[in-house]
């Protein structure tokens, strides 16, 4: 059974966002290499207490691949526009077309411990879809997608803006100062990286051809067509 699962706006946003993240994390790591220390508060430099000091990220993880702070900033700031403006269009659009209310709204019953345990067990058995409603997202999907859409991506955008010296000062104040904003920017990036790794792993486990095709064409094959593997 073929189901129309992802609307055009969702697919467009998904790939624009994926491209932006694919560019912004490696270029962000290169920017981080210029000063791989994190602080809390308004100021923070070499003589101040850093809560995190890391070695330089290796070249295969950074963009550009050799030390180039100016080049990394060009990449990062250009794709920041893609990331921010695509989210700015996608979120209100998804409220209007009721994607958020219909597909991402978490119902009270889903948070019951018994339901969570049941869903977790199903995940371990690689059963990701409710046979009664295969199109519906399970609770872990809803929570992680909502966390990325409503918390991580906005946090990355606003903490990123707060780092700009020409920005409104209250934006950095909201996060406890510019260096706190920089720390939160890094933490949100780490969580988004974790999400991406888990997301890609589950795409592969759930049947990569079917999953990727549905995000390109919108059409998804429901599990009963997938035989025993479902």
């Amino acid at each position, binding site marked *: 059974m073929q189901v129309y699962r992802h609307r055009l706006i969702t697919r467009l946003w998904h790939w624009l966002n994926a491209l932006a993240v694919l560019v912004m994390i490696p270029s962000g790591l290169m920017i981080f290499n210029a000063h791989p220390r994190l602080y809390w508060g308004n*100021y923070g*430099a070499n003589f101040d207490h850093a809560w995190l000091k890391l070695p330089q990220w290796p070249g295969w993880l950074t963009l550009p691949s050799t030390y*180039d*702070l100016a*080049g990394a900033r060009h990449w990062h700031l*250009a794709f920041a*526009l893609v990331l921010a403006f695509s989210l700015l269009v996608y979120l209100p659009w998804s409220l209007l077309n009721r994607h958020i209310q219909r597909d991402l709204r978490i119902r009270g019953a889903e948070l019951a411990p018994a339901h969570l345990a049941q869903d977790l067990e199903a995940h371990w058995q690689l059963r990701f879809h409710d046979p009664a409603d295969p199109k519906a997202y399970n609770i872990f999907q809803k929570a992680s997608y909502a966390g990325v859409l409503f918390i991580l991506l906005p946090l990355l955008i606003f903490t990123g803006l707060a780092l700009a010296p*020409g920005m409104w000062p209250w934006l950095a104040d909201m996060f406890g100062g510019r260096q706190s904003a920089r720390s939160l920017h890094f933490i949100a990036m780490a969580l988004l990286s974790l999400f991406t790794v888990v997301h890609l792993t589950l795409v592969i486990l759930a049947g990569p051809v079917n999953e990727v095709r549905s995000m390109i064409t919108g059409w998804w094959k429901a599990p009963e067509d997938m035989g025993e593997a479902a």
Partner: protein
Amino acid sequence: MITRRGLIVSGGATLLAGCDAWTGSPLLLDADEAHRYLQRAVVGRGALAAEFRPEQRSPRFRTNGTNNPNTPEYNALAANRFADWRLQVGGMVRQPLSLSLAQLRSMPQRAQITRHDCVEGWSAIGKWQGPRLEEVLRLAGLQDGVRYIVFHCADVFGQRRIPYYESIDLVDAFHPQTILAWSMNDAPLGVGHGAPLRLRVERQLGYKHAKYVMRIEAVASLAGIGRGKGGFWEDIAGYEWYAGI
């Protein structure tokens, strides 16, 4: 069709290496211009940078770039505590000026405790004092057609010993917090921080805050300055000319 999975699994590293070649592409540089336009349109041209209380200052304010120009000319000026130093103001002005430190100190002053944000990511907070750049420019009188103010400095870089230079447009030149600081944390500016005079352009990153300023030049275009991108790091390494982001 290229899928994300395909990109990451098979070609991630190759892709990123390939991207190195696009780093200087005009599309990315246009995005920098878009940021300047958006930031000035949304935040406003005259918006003020954050100012802090004295106890919020960094205990120790690190230096960056040049710590000491250490040229014979500069050392001679420093040995005499910059009594013989003069700030030259020229280019497209009605009245070229040659100002001593005493003259700059006797002009109306602005003091501000602000955060210095380096492009590398660190920040330090300190107090700066000096006349507003606008006061100096009004004294000299800008001719019609001036679009940029260029700062020529005493510190030299590399084997070719290129003196540092930077530039800002008139929006930032006339911004209320743009000052020519001769004092830092209530003491005369130290050599590490740009003695005797440095620019403070508070809504931009650190490399715009030219230290060891010797000469100010009003120009209509940046084409004749260095390689034409408006500043030493802009020309050498491709940093953004507008560093408000």
